[in-house]
C-alpha cells in the first residue's frame, strides 16, 4: 500500500464522521488509551516525566544531527556481529532487497512481525507477486491483512474491527465456525499462525530501535510473535527507517520507559527482544542469516530540512493520535497514508509530497494536545503551521486552499488593515445580514467557504453597534468605575 488517497481527506473524514461503525470503535478505544497512559504516568512526579522527555528528545536530536556517523556505526557493528546491512533509497529498492534475500534461500513463505515501514513499502503485495506468501503474525496486522486494509492506528491496526467482523474474516479465510467469543477468536488465530511459524523460511520484522554502538535491533511486542519471527525461521530480515537509530545500549532503558507508557499505558511490554546478529556457533537456536535493511523512502526530505527534522524523532507510540480531537472523530483511514493522526499529517506530506496530501496540514485545530503528550517533544502544531505556509506559498497543484478561500483571506487582510475599512465592511455586513437573520441568529450563510459553518451551527449576526462605537459614544468619557 503506497501513500495514496491522502488527497481525499475532506471527503473521507466527513464519511468517517457519519459511519456509526467507526464512531463506536473510536469511542471505545480512544478513551481507553488516554486513561491507560494517564494512569501509567501517575507513578512519576510530572517533572521527572518531563525530564525523561527532554532527555529522549535531546538524544534523538543529537543522533539525527549526526545520522551519517551513527548509520556507519550501525553498519560496522551489525557486520561485526555476523549480520548484513542494506541501504534502500526508496520502497522499490527495499522491496527488491527483501525479495532477493528471500529468493536466495528459496523461501516460499515469509512470516512477519508488525512493521510500519513494510506497510509504507507495500511489501506484502510485492511478496505475493513474487510467489512468496507473506503472513502477518501480530493479531491486529493479521486481521487487516485478511481484510486487505491498511492499519487504522499506528499501534492498534485493527481497532476498528468488531468481533463479528473478525469472526466473519476467519470464517471466510480459515473456514472456522463463527463465534463472538474473543478468546476463541484468539485461539483460532493462534493455531493458524503456529503452523506458519513452524514452516516459514524467512522472518521479517520492523525495528523499534537500532542501537548503533552494539548493532542491536530492539523489538517491543506484546504477543510473542516477534520473538517467534526472529528465532524460528532460518533467515531474519529486520527493516527499519533510518531514523530509528539511537546511539548506545543504555539509551534503550530511557526509551523503553517512554514508549509503552505513551502507547498502551503499560509500564513495560510483554516482550522486549534485543537482536544482535544471527545465531552464534554456541547458540542452540536462532536464524542462520541476519539482515538489516535501512530505508530512506522520503525521510531524507525531513532530515535535510532543519524546520522539519524534528519529525524524525517520532518513536511511533500513537499518543498523539489518541489525544487528537480530529483523529478521535475520523480515525486512521481518512488520512490515506500509512501514518495517521497529527504525526501522519506532518510526515505524509513531507514523505509523499505536499501535492498528494495538501489537506492534511489543515486537518488540525492546532489545539496543541499532541505536542504535550509527545514523549520526544515534537512540536507538531508548529510543523503543521510550517506546512500550511508552504502549501499557501506553493504552486497551484500544491495548494489545499481553494480560490474562494484565498480570496477570503485577501479580503480579510484588506478589511482589517485599517479601522475605517473594518467599519465599512461591518456596515455592509449589517445591511446584507438583515434578510437572513431571524431571532438574532443566522441559520444559513449563503456564501462560499463560510457556508460550511451553518451546516451544524448558527452564526451570530453582527451587533447593531460595534464595541468601538459604544466605547466612543457611551463609555470613553466615563472614567473609572
Amino acid at each position, binding site marked *: 500500500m503506497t501513500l495514496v488517497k491522502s488527497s481525499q481527506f475532506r471527503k473521507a*473524514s466527513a464519511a468517517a464522521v457519519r459511519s456509526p461503525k467507526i464512531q463506536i470503535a473510536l469511542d471505545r478505544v480512544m478513551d481507553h488509551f488516554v486513561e491507560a497512559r494517564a494512569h501509567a504516568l501517575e507513578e512519576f512526579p510530572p517533572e521527572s516525566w518531563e525530564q525523561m522527555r527532554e532527555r529522549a528528545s535531546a538524544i534523538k536530536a543529537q543522533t539525527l544531527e549526526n545520522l551519517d556517523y551513527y548509520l556507519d556505526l550501525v553498519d560496522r557493528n551489525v557486520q561485526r556481529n555476523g549480520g548484513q546491512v542494506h541501504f534502500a533509497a526508496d520502497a522499490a529498492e527495499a522491496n527488491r532487497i527483501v525479495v532477493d534475500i528471500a529468493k536466495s534461500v528459496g523461501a516460499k513463505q515469509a512470516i512477519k512481525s508488525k512493521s510500519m515501514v513494510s506497510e509504507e513499502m507495500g511489501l506484502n503485495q510485492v511478496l505475493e507477486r513474487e510467489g512468496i506468501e507473506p503472513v502477518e503474525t501480530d493479531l491486529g496486522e493479521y486481521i487487516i491483512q485478511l481484510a486487505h486494509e491498511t492499519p487504522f492506528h499506528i499501534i492498534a491496526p485493527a481497532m476498528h474491527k468488531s468481533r463479528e467482523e473478525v469472526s466473519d474474516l476467519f470464517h471466510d479465510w480459515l473456514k472456522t465456525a463463527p463465534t463472538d467469543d474473543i478468546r476463541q477468536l484468539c485461539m483460532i488465530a493462534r493455531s493458524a499462525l503456529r503452523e506458519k511459524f513452524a514452516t516459514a523460511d524467512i522472518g521479517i520484522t520492523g525495528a523499534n530501535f537500532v542501537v548503533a554502538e552494539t548493532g542491536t535491533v530492539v523489538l517491543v511486542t506484546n504477543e510473542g510473535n516477534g520473538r517467534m519471527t526472529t528465532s524460528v525461521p532460518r533467515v531474519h530480515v529486520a527493516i527499519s527507517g533510518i531514523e530509528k537509530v539511537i546511539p548506545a545500549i543504555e539509551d534503550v532503558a530511557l526509551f523503553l520507559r517512554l514508549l509503552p507508557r505513551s502507547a498502551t499505558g503499560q509500564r513495560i511490554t510483554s516482550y522486549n527482544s534485543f537482536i544482535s546478529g544471527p545465531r552464534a556457533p554456541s547458540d542452540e537456536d536462532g536464524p542462520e542469516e541476519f539482515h538489516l535493511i535501512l530505508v530512506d523512502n522520503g525521510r531524507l526530505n525531513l532530515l535535510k530540512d532543519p524546520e522539519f527534522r524534528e519529525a524524525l524523532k517520532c518513536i511511533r507510540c500513537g499518543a498523539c493520535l489518541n489525544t487528537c480531537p480530529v483523529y478521535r472523530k475520523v480515525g486512521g483511514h481518512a488520512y490515506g497514508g500509512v501514518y495517521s493522526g497529527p504525526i501522519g499529517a506532518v510526515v505524509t506530506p513531507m514523505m509523499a509530497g505536499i501535492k498528494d496530501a495538501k489537506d492534511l496540514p489543515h486537518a488540525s485545530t*492546532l489545539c496543541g494536545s499532541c505536542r504535550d503528550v509527545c514523549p520526544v517533544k515534537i512540536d507538531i502544531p508548529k510543523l503543521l503551521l510550517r506546512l500550511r505556509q508552504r502549501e499557501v506559498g506553493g504552486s497551484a497543484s500544491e495548494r489545499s486552499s481553494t480560490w474562494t478561500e484565498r480570496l477570503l483571506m485577501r479580503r480579510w487582510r484588506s478589511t*482589517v488593515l485599517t479601522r475605517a475599512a473594518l467599519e465599512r465592511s461591518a456596515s455592509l455586513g449589517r445591511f446584507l445580514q438583515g434578510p437572513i437573520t431571524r431571532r438574532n441568529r443566522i441559520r444559513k450563510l449563503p456564501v462560499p467557504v463560510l457556508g460550511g459553518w451553518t451546516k451544524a451551527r*448558527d452564526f451570530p449576526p453582527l451587533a447593531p453597534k460595534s464595541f468601538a462605537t459604544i466605547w466612543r459614544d457611551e463609555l470613553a468619557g*466615563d472614567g473609572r*468605575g
Partner: protein
Amino acid sequence: MKVLRRAGVDVTFPADQTCCGQVGYNGGFEQEAREVALHFMDVFDGDEPVVVPSGSCASMIKIFYLDLFADDPVLLERAQRLSERTHEFSDFLVNVLEVENVGAAFGGTVTYHDACHLLRELHISAEPRALIEGVSGAELAEMTDSDRCCGFGGLFSVKFPEVSAAILGEKLENIEASGAEVVVANDCGCLMHMRGALSRKGMRQRAMHIAELLASQSGLAVGQPERPEA
C-alpha cells in the same frame, strides 16, 4: 471594561484597532498575517499593559508574533516588548491585579471550558476558575474533559465542517452532563462556536465570556446572549 474599571483600572480602547492577525497566521497566510500584526503593533505601541479578552488572540500576540517576526531583529524586539506587556483578561486580573473576587453576583451553576491556546500556550487554567469561584452565588461544576478542544480551530471549522461539528457535539454532551446552566470560556472563537451549536440545537445552556459573568450583578446592564426558544 466594567470589570476592569470596577477593579480600579484606567482603561482606554485604541480606536484604530482591528485584528491580531491569527486568522491568516493559522491558515498559513504568513505575509498577510505579518501586515495585520504590524498594524496591531503600531496601534498598541507604548508602555501600558495590553489586556486581551480572548486566549487565542493573547497567544498570537504573546507567543506567535515572536515566530512571525523571528527573521527581523528590529520587529522582533518590538514584538518581545509587546509580548511582555500583553495579558489575557483573567491572567491580568489574578496575576497582575491580584484580584480573585471582583464583586460579581450570579445565581447558577457554571462549567468552564479550557480554550486550547489559553491552556496549552499560556498555561492559564487556575485563574479563570478562581475568578468563577469568587462570584457570589455561582457554583463551578467541572465538565468531563474540559481541556479537550471544542473543534473550532478557525478556518478548520469551515474547511472541515462535519469533523468540526462532531468534535463540538462531544463538547456539548459534556456541558450538558455537567448539569451547569452556563458554560464559561475566555476565548471568543470557542464561544462563538459553542453558542452557535447551543442555539442550533435549542439547548437551554448559555455560553458566556468570563467578563460577562464577572460583570453581572444587580444594577449592571449586561448584554445577555440570545436564548432562542427550542
